[in-house]
């Protein structure tokens, strides 16, 4: 005979409630700690475009760059390049909201 059948049904109920409550607490704790650590900073990208040959160059952002800045030489034709965009590339985030 298994041990369970020898026990009083009320004991089984009590054990079930305790198991349920403790697993609920554990799960809610784990969920909270897992939402806290997903903090990944992305990289900032600078997009430069050549004003004469339309060559586009993506590079990591350097301090002091701003959209509209001209002055650098195009590696292809030697023309002037302008910063056309600066943005943050973030790793894709899990979507939880209903859209």
């Amino acid at each position, binding site marked *: 005979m298994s041990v369970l059948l020898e026990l*009083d049904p009320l004991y089984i109920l009590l054990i079930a409630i305790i198991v349920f409550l403790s697993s609920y607490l554990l799960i809610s704790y784990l969920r909270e700690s897992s939402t806290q650590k997903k903090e990944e900073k992305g990289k900032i990208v600078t997009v430069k475009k050549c*004003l004469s040959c339309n060559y586009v160059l993506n590079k990591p*952002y350097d*301090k002091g760059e*701003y959209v*509209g800045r001209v002055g650098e030489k195009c590696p292809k034709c030697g023309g002037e390049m302008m910063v056309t965009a600066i*943005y*943050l590339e973030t790793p894709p985030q899990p979507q939880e*909201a209903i*859209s």
Partner: protein
Amino acid sequence: MDGVQDWTSMLIAILILSSFILNFTDIPQKIQFTRYSSVVRRKLMELIEFEEEGRRKSIKYLKDMNLPNPKTLIDDYVDNFFMIFPVEREPIDVIKRLKHLLRTRDEAVKRYVLDKVPNVSEIDRQRIEVLLELNSVLTYINKVVKHYYNLGVKFNDWIMMMQLALQINQIVRLAKAYRDAIDSFGVGAPIGDGAGALVARMLLGNVSGASEIAPETVLYETSFEGRKLYVIKAKGPGPTVGWPGEALEKLVDSLECRISRIITVDAALKLESEKSGEVAYGVGAAIGDLGPEKIAMERIASRCSVPLDAVVIKMSNEEAINTMTKQVYEGVVRAADIVKNTILSKTREGDAVVVVGVGNTLGIE
């Protein structure tokens, strides 16, 4: 059989006792109060950490600008420079009064920075002002949370504590956005709120030669498919929003209303179900100031009966004050296309069109 009966009578006794406790005492609320207040206390520690971290980072950025004593600069600013809103019960000229107060405050902040740091460049001055403002906001958020926490403890107000505990996650999220914004403004790359200014820049291509039409606000003149195109935006690349309403008013006045369309572009707060970078268009003045700039745009458009269009790029609160994300940037590209299409389909060759790129122009000339 006897054992089972013992158990059942005990269970019934427990049920009666617990129903008495639940219904006729405050013990459950006391327990909840303890639980909720411990949640708030834990989150409050996080908020205090955000404030201190923000302070540390700002001091670092200010030191990098070679300021002598950044700590006192921040400490003397925080808590001061509030603005008391004008009386609204008497609405006559309330906008004029509000505008006056806003300008006075702006001037006072500017004077404060210039007094403490003479010979500072305009861009650095604007950066210092933004850093001071962000620190001020973080301190204020903490003070409000502490206020309600202390009130709750003082009066054993479990409802207040519960409300605070339920809202604190949103408050922490907001404070975190402001703390991160200190880094974003320190780095100097465009922020999400700069979407409108970036659309303006995209329409300009490599046009330069702006004239400062209003304080910290510039006007570019160019042409697009046979139309005369006037573009107004804040003066970059420092972090400023300028006075776009005043600028538009001056421009349209100087052209004696010979304008066939005004298009305003701005960042807008998205609803939770919307995606970042969604673009929508409609009519009206797309600008989220306290009133004076928006009403200036509406007044001048209606006085000259010029159609006033609005194009908005949607994003969250956090995205608006942090470095522009790729999704928002893609929205900016779409918004620029919408503005171009609007000009092509709703104006004729030879017409004059004004595009106002509203928003903080950090990192965008």
